């Protein structure tokens, strides 16, 4: 024990270091083994199973809810798309009515020559008759008719003239209307209608032509003639 004091310590230390290492590694491995499902108590396993079932049920509920939400979003999306399409149509319709869009299509022209003894009420009657017959857009001598187009009369150089938005209406008066040409023409020419009245009462003979293509430009400014 005295002389060999140093010679036994080093090998024993080495073996003990290795032994300690093996011990703790084995301890850990055994601990892992005890934590595996096979080694658990039956009551614990039952509790774990119950927890997992509960969790699964709640997750399934969540999936259902999310799917319901998804279908709701899809529904509202399609509703919004329909709404958008309707709004676009509505905007288009309003723009046509307001006069901010160029419009072209088939229609008729009504031409009134200089020998006609017209007053502005006749013009208004013709235009209203055209509206009633389904005209979409009407213009008179390049004045597009929109919501505040005004027809008046004024005496200029001793003669009574028809004024459109305070501008003198020159002959020949050309009224153009876009719509179904047949409907528009019959709307004007049916017996007892406006053209019949003008012809028989005032000897005015408007010339009515069906057109395949009429272009009525947008009003220069929607506020014009204020």
């Amino acid at each position, binding site marked *: 024990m005295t002389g060999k004091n140093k010679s036994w310590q080093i090998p024993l230390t080495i073996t003990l270091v290795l032994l300690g290492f093996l011990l*703790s590694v084995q301890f850990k491995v055994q601990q892992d083994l005890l934590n595996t499902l096979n080694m658990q108590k039956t009551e614990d396993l039952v509790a774990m199973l119950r927890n997992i079932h509960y969790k699964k049920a709640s997750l399934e509920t969540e999936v259902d809810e999310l799917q319901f939400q998804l279908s709701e979003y899809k529904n509202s999306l399609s509703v919004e798309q329909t709404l958008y399409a309707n709004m676009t149509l509505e905007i288009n319709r309003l723009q046509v009515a307001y006069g901010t869009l160029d419009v072209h299509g088939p229609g008729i022209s009504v031409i009134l020559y200089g020998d006609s003894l017209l007053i502005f009420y006749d013009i208004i009657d013709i235009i209203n008759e055209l509206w009633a017959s389904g005209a979409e857009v009407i213009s008179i001598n390049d004045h597009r008719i929109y919501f505040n187009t005004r027809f008046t009369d004024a005496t200029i150089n001793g003669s009574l003239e028809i004024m459109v938005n305070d501008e003198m209406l020159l002959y020949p008066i050309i009224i153009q209307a876009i719509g179904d040409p047949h409907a528009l023409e019959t709307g004007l020419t049916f017996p007892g209608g406006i053209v019949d009245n003008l012809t028989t009462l005032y000897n005015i003979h408007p010339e009515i032509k069906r057109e395949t293509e009429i272009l009525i430009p947008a009003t220069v400014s929607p506020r014009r003639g204020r």
Partner: protein
Amino acid sequence: MWLPIIGLIVGIIFGSIFTFSIPVMYAKYMGVALLAGLDSVLGGVRSIMEDSFDGPILLTGFFTNILLAAFLAYVGDRLGVELYLAAVFAFGVRLFHNLAAIRRIILNKFNHHL
């Protein structure tokens, strides 16, 4: 005297610090090897007491015992014979034998001093 104990503690700490872990299916071989290692260490302590200590014998005995025990357990598993029981039995008997010898030597020394 304290160096081997410090070595043991260092080894345990190292083993728990390293995340190194052997597969669970080898845990049995490892346990048998551990028993063999423990037997070798006790044999070494006994030989120190008997003044017949030899460093190379301890080291080679430690490693060969460990490897042989693990190998025996492995082969036993392959053959369907629980051979690791032989290792457990043999090393267990030697363990207690060594322990008894150490106890006796310490008691003898104690009596001498008295």
